[in-house]
Each structure stands twice: as C-alpha cells, then as structure tokens.
C-alpha cells in the first residue's frame, strides 16, 4: 500500500503539462507539434486548455492522458492572467511544461519562468532527454545543445521541427477551479486579423514566397497569388517585401517572422539574406527563381532557375 502510494507520487511528479492553444473549437496546429515534442520526453502528458471550446479536441490528441480545462475562457491568453494560473498548477506537480513558440507562447512562457524562478528554453527543435534539448541560436546559424539545471523544465517548441500529433480515443477531461490572477494586467482593446483562403503559413505543406524582386504590390498579387492557389500553398514574404507594403506583416518568413519547414518552398525574387534563410532553410525542397545568378538563395536551393520572374512565374503557374 505504502509502496503503491510512493509510486503514484513519483509518477505524478514526472508528468508534463502542456498548454494547448486555440479558440472557437479550433486547436492551433502548433500545439499539436508541441504534444509530439512532449511525447518524446516520454512522461504522461496533461493538457491544459484555458478556452473550454477546445477541451474535447485536446482530449483526442494522441499522447494526451488527461485534459484540464478552466470553467470560463481566459480571453486573448493575456500572459498576466495565464502565467499565475500555470504557476499554481505546475508548482511541485509537474516536471515539464511545454508551450508552442507562437506569439502567445512567447508572451506567456518567460513570465511564467520569472514567477517560478526558472530559466526557460525558447524554440526547442530536438529533445535529447528530459533535461537536454537542442535549440537554434544566431538566426539558425548555430545549433546549441543545452542542459537545464532547473528543477522544472520550461520550454517553447518550434512547430516546424516536430510533426503534429495524430488523433486518439478521447482522454478524460477534468474541470479545474482557476482563480490565480496577477491583479495587474494589460487589457485587450481590439484585434485585426488577416483573413485568407490560403492555408496558414506556419503549418502549410507548400509555401510560395515573394521578395523585393516583385517590385510592387500589384506584381506580388498578380504573380504570387495564382501560383499559390494552383499549388494550394500558403503565401510568404521576405522582410523587404513586407516593409515595401507588398503584403501583410504576418506573412513574413524569417528570424523575426514565421519559421516554416514545408515540403516545398518556392522563393521568388528573394535574395536570401541570413535572416530570411533562418525562417525557411529546413524546408524539404527549396526552389529559387531569381534574375541574379549570384544571389545567396541559390546556395540553399535544391532547384534554381535564373531569369526574369515576370515571364517565368506565369509560365510555371500555367504548366504545373
């Protein structure tokens, strides 16, 4: 009896907690990759949802053994409200906490680290063991293998480095009373989300990206959109294209934008600065179309075509 209790205590002490993100019944695909990363740590996984509408979906994610849900949603995932809740849940009960490296994850995780006096690991791309992880530094120009000496491991997970978890039979769902609050929070005022019929950039299997070489918004739309549509690809962009107003900020691929690793990445009129490469060089097949044969993008491209994109891109769109 005593033995059994001790055993159950040590078990529960090794569990991983994950925050699954999403809203309106939809789980953020990056959270599915986060569960995959947690599966590699090998301990039972408890999923927390602070938006009850995704609780049932979370219970069906392969690897999740239990779902904790809050009674009412924590609107907009404000870090001042979610971090104290996480602190309360984790303290002494979980050894690992993972969250996706999304804008929500990046906002919450460090604040939680400060509350728990733990140094988190950002954007892990590989699990070596329960304490040791690989993460990219210097815009992906170096990979650091890092061992944490903290009692609790806090990490955000780079979605493009882990395949999304599949479906399973539903795990049990438990409602928790959630009262933790910092009492000192920013307030949500409004939001302006970009609506697109194209797949979401972060999780798309194909990406067509445009850069400065497209010259203006009209050419960007005229050349990139039809090709992306034909390939059912997401649209991406370099910083130059975004800064010049060719498309929305949220489409930027790179060190400071989205990190993607699709099956196919077509870079059109993109020179390939290191900050851009940081966001896409893990794509399986990279195609570069550029008029400058010396552009650095050709050093990472599997297939390169030197020439005028005004003629090449429409021809490619037509022939695919």
């Amino acid at each position, binding site marked *: 009896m005593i033995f059994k209790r001790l055993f159950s205590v040590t078990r529960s002490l090794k569990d991983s907690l994950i925050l699954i993100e999403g809203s309106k019944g939809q789980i953020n695909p990056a959270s599915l990759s986060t569960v995959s990363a947690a599966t590699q740590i090998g301990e039972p996984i408890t999923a927390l949802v602070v938006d009850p509408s995704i609780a049932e979906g979370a219970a069906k994610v392969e690897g999740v053994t239990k779902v904790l849900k809050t009674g009412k949603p924590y609107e907009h995932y404000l870090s001042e409200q979610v971090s104290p809740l996480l602190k309360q849940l984790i303290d002494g009960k979980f050894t690992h906490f993972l969250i996706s490296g*999304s*804008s929500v994850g990046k906002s919450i995780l460090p604040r939680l680290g*400060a509350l728990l006096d733990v140094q988190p690991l950002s954007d892990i791309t590989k699990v070596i063991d329960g304490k040791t992880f690989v993460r990219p*530094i210097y815009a992906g120009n170096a*990979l650091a*293998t890092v061992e944490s000496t903290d009692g609790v491991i806090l990490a955000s997970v780079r979605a493009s480095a882990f395949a999304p978890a599949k479906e399973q039979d539903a795990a049990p769902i438990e409602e928790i009373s959630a009262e933790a609050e910092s009492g000192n929070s*920013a*307030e949500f005022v409004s939001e302006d989300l970009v609506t697109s019929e194209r797949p979401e950039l972060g999780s798309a299997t194909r990406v067509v990206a445009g850069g400065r070489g497209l010259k203006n918004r009209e050419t960007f739309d005229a050349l990139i959109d039809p090709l992306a549509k034909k390939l059912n690809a997401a649209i991406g962009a370099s910083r130059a294209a975004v*800064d010049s107003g060719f498309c929305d900020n949220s489409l930027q691929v790179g060190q400071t934008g989205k990190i993607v690793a699709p099956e196919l990445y077509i870079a059109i009129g993109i020179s390939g600065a290191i900050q851009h490469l940081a966001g896409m060089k893990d794509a399986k097949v990279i195609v570069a179309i550029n008029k400058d044969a010396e552009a650095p993008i050709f050093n990472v491209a599997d297939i390169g075509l030197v020439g005028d994109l005004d003629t090449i891109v429409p021809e490619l769109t037509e*022939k695919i």
Partner: protein
Amino acid sequence: MSNKLKILVPVKRVIDYAIKPRINKTNTGVETKGVKFSINPFCDIALEESLRLREKTPESVESIHAVSIGPSKAQDILRTALAKGADTSTLIDVGEEPVEPLQVAKLLKKVVEDKKSNLIVLGKQAIDDDSNQTGQMLAGLLNWPQATNASKVEVKGDEVYVTREIDGGADVLKAKLPMVVSVDLRLNEPRYASLPNIMKAKKKPLEKLKLKDLGLDSIENRLKVLKVEEPPARQAGVKVENVDQLIEKLKELKAL
C-alpha cells in the same frame, strides 16, 4: 506620484546582424575575436521609440536612461545610445560570460527600482541567443503589465496603448503605467547619431557598476551549453534552364 515617464531602455551588445557567425574550434560557442559588434537592432528600435515619445510630447517624459549588462566593451553601445539622445546610462560590467535572460531580468529589476522607472521599452529579442524572454521576465518579476512585439506605442495620460504583431495579424492592448513594452521590427526606423552629438555624448553620465555593487557575487546561469554546432549543410542543388526542366525536377524530387 507624477505621471511623467521615466523610461528605461535596456540595450545589448551583439555580433553585428550582417555578419555570419562562425562556430569556435572547441564547439562551445561562436567565435567573437576580431568580429564586429553593434547594438542589437531591436534595442536600437526601442531607444528610437523612447526618443520619439519625448519628441512628440516633451512635457510627458522626464528622463530616458539606457542600461547594458555585459563586458566593459558594452560601454561603446551606451555611448551610441547617449549620442542618439538618452540622458544617462548604466553599465553593469559582468565580464565576457553570457548572461541568461532570467539573470538579466533580475539585474534590470534592481536598476528599475533604483531609477524609479515607470516605462521599460526594450527589444523583443536579441539576435544572438534569439530567446525573446527578458522583457516578459522583467514584467513578471515586477508584476507589471506587459505588451510584446509592439508595432505602435501611444501614451495617453497614464495609459499606454500598444499595437502588437501577433500570429495572423495585430491586436491592441492597453495598460496603466508602470508597464513593460517589447518592440518589433516595424515600429520605427532608428536614427543615426550625428558627429556633434557623438562628441557631446562623451560628457553624458555613464555609471559603471560591478556585480558586487548590486550585492551579488556571481551570475547563476541555469542552462549548461554542452555544445554548439553548425546546422547540417544542405546538399548542393542544381540549376535548371527553363520552366519545363524545373517542373520535371520537382516531379523527380516528389515535390509535386
């Protein structure tokens, strides 16, 4: 308490963004000898935003203080910050070893308390360790509201409105002072320091502190870097002559 802004701008000295870092021979880090260092680009944007807040409503800003934690050479970037318009500065000289965000946040908290800052504007991430943590940690330690990835900052009385870049678009948060704002790339275009201002900056205050001045013996980093490696190199690709060959090659690689 007056509502005047006492802005603190933490700045970091990093390898210049245009340089491709090389891994050192012992695979323990990145080669720093003979490499050009600069102010972290996001820190530069944070400083610029603070200067613009003052230019817009001079009466609302009492002071702008820049602080850096790093080797003694980091005073170069503090001089740059002073030349651009910061009033005063502090260097916390911790030697050559890297300092993790949690420790930086703890040191910054002491500076915040000492300077009685009520608005902290800092970069969203440093381009060397790519952590994107310090601002949020500092906000957590102080129990202040935070707004990350700012693309617009407006101060209205004692409230700060921040437009943030988030996945899929933008949102707006507001909070009462004191607060922490981390800035994104598109917030502004940082200015250059003029030669007369660089000369004048040499006379501006630069306070130098050691860890023991802050009551600390050493930095307690929590993460052990076991090794640093080059990412796997991609196999050399092929160049094709025309669209037909491109499509053929894509099919060969099963990408279509």
